């Protein structure tokens, strides 16, 4: 049960023959070879597998790979451009928002979605918390992550 899908991953066009039974996470990790997105729970609870599909944050573990057909996918690997970290990534590093790092690729995508959505709007810490509620971190206690998001909002 295979299907050919065409999509872009971090701006690069791909045409792949995928098993219709795969999740987008399976395809990204095992076929595309991008292992940034992680499988934490596999059931949409932890957000470690978060990626952007047409700029919308989704859990790629419960997203069928065939749904990515014609779409543009962004993963943590694409956020660093020409060796330069994105403002979100840089803020995570500077605020010490990364400990074991397992949750980080998903969190960075959630924060990137937040930044793009709220860049010209006023927001509160509660908005940051609400928009990161689908991501679980067992190390940091979240405070440094929220600070990183706040810092990233001040940069381009």
């Amino acid at each position: 049960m295979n299907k050919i899908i065409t999509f872009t991953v971090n701006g690069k066009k791909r045409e792949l023959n995928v098993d219709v039974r795969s999740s987008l996470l399976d395809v990204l990790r095992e076929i595309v070879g991008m292992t940034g997105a992680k499988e934490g729970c596999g059931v949409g609870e932890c957000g470690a597998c978060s990626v952007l599909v047409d700029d919308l944050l989704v859990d790629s573990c419960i997203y069928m790979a065939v749904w990515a057909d014609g779409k543009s996918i962004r993963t943590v690997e694409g956020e660093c451009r020409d060796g330069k970290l994105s403002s979100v990534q840089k803020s995570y590093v500077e605020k010490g928002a990364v400990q074991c790092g397992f949750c980080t690729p998903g969190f960075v995508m959630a924060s990137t979605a937040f930044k793009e959505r709220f860049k010209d709007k006023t927001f509160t810490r509660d908005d940051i918390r609400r928009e990161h509620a689908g991501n679980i971190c067992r190390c940091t206690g979240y405070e440094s992550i929220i600070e990183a998001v706040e810092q990233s909002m001040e940069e381009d």
Partner: protein
Amino acid sequence: MFPLKSYEKAESVDHAIQLLQDNPEARPIAGGTDVLIRLRDGKTGYDHLVDIHQLEALRQIKTDEDGTLVIGSGVTFSMAMESELIREIIPILSTASETVGGPQVRNVATIGGNICNGVTSADSASPLMALNTVLQLEGPRGTRLVPIAEFYLGPGKVDIGQQEILVSFRIGEKDYKGYYGHYHKYAMRNAMDIATIGCAALCKIEANQLTDLRLAYGVAAPVPIRCTNTEQAVIGKPVNRDLIREIESLVEKDVNPRTSWRASKEFRLQIISELSNRVVTQVIEKAGGRIE
């Protein structure tokens, strides 16, 4: 890998119905946030799928000539939250949508799926109940219009044939115009949680009299319910403290909660009556009523 035995992508509603007719074991998949998890858990009954994910015909939000608000079954919670039309006409559904799961889930999970899976905790169910929503189903024998209260047959069981597709939710102008509503979700966490109790209320006030009240709950019974006895007993009465107290005491007779690992029956009853007080007070105040 999801353990699928067959997968067909539908290009239209008619095509989906055709595909469902072709395979009596097939079921539709929309946002997938329930179906894919059940498949992964090895639950049976989901291994033949007809894919209606992001079918454009199911993603509309509009009003008909007669003022009926029509919401496609494939509208996601994020779309409902962002829709100006929904926020203006039935803000209760925007509020309820905000309480669902987390951002990732709201971006793909659909209101149609929330209702079709038949669970009592569905956050969209009690607001849609309070709005007297009518469901439009399409199947090989044409269209069926089913009021949401009749759609629920039992826990996890709804009145939809294997060959039918839920197309839209229809809310008539008489059911939203002049009404003020609110939804409160009581859960253990502020996000990523299932309601312990969900309470939706809509009211209409004239000259400080309650001219209409609709009170609906999730998780207060095996399926989402309306508190019709309570409603009938208090409609027409003047708005005051006694009225709120009366609703609070009557509501227990309309509900039938059970004990689960999440909460005991007694605790749920307590939350049910407390929420009737808070949510009804809030809608009365929104509607300009004064509680003396």
